[in-house]
């Protein structure tokens, strides 16, 4: 600061450059934000915190809300300027129905999609990660695969058990259909003993997720963007057809 602030000078009357600058430092810890050219053809969907379903979580929880994500995916499908979608995951999991709904929406999107798991893609984050055309996992990122459960509630009746079993079958079917992992391998990971403290399941880290066939490759945002651009290119050339004829799909 070059100038000493003059005492008794009413600050509210001149919210000039210096206060805007201070505000920016307070909010972002830096003074300027990089600018980008308008109309990005690749959009980015972030799945963070808990995936919120029918029960609204308190505002201090970081959540991905189903009712926010679904219209965004619809808008991406409809907007002709958007050519691809990058899905970034760092989630602990959450509601099974909401998670599967997002997964199905992403899987049925006609535009190229690439996902990256950063940090964690646990529980119902697994189907979301595999729903994209190509998936990446950061080397340090982890994914926990475990059976479906109701937090804290005791399963008392066979009906509930059967319902949960069917729900789990839906998750397993989705994951095996959209990734290279086999049914047996996924179930093996899901019901493995001794990996998680006092629980069944497996925590796969980076390369392990690739080895089991869940995720396509280990990588970060650079690789993911390159792959997405590649997919956009092949899909646009496919739409034109090799000899200019129209492709039926």
């Amino acid at each position, binding site marked *: 600061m070059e100038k000493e602030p003059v005492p008794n000078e009413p600050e509210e009357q001149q919210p000039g450059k210096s206060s805007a600058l201070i*505000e*920016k430092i*307070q*909010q*972002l810890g830096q003074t300027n*934000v*990089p*600018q*980008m*050219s*308008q*109309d*990005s053809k*690749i*959009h*980015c*969907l972030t799945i963070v915190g808990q995936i919120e379903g029918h029960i*609204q*979580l*308190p*505002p201090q929880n970081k959540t991905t809300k189903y009712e*926010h994500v679904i219209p*965004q995916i619809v*808008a*991406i499908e409809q907007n002709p300027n958007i050519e691809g*979608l990058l899905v970034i995951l760092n989630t602990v999991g959450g509601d099974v129905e909401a998670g599967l709904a997002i997964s199905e929406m992403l899987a049925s999107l006609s535009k190229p999609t690439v996902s990256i798991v950063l940090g964690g893609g646990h529980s119902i984050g697994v189907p979301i990660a595999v729903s994209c055309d190509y998936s990446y996992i950061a080397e340090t990122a982890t994914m926990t695969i475990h059976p479906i459960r109701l*937090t*804290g*509630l005791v399963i008392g009746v066979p009906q509930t058990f059967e319902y949960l079993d069917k729900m789990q079958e839906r998750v397993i079917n989705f994951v095996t259909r959209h990734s290279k992992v086999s049914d047996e391998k996924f179930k093996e990971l899901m019901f493995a003993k001794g990996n998680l403290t006092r629980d069944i399941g497996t925590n796969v880290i980076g390369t392990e997720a690739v080895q089991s066939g869940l995720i396509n490759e280990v990588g970060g945002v650079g690789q993911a963007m390159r792959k997405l651009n590649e997919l956009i290119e092949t899909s646009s050339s496919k739409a034109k057809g090799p000899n200019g004829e129209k492709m039926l799909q």
Partner: protein
Amino acid sequence: MILYTMTPMDQIFPTDESVYSRYMMITYNGVQLLAERQENNGYRVDRILSTDPAVYLEQSIQPGSIIRE
């Protein structure tokens, strides 16, 4: 009192309704924002709800900034 349970805390002690109502969805310049209502009739941006990466670089709606009515 000590509760020995694996039931999530917010199921036992539900959050006050007023906490929820402070947060609201607003549309500012065509961008959906999750904002916290301030006492002086403004909104404090909590989260940007958009898939367009360019929106996240817009200065006026950076999380933490105040939008005046």
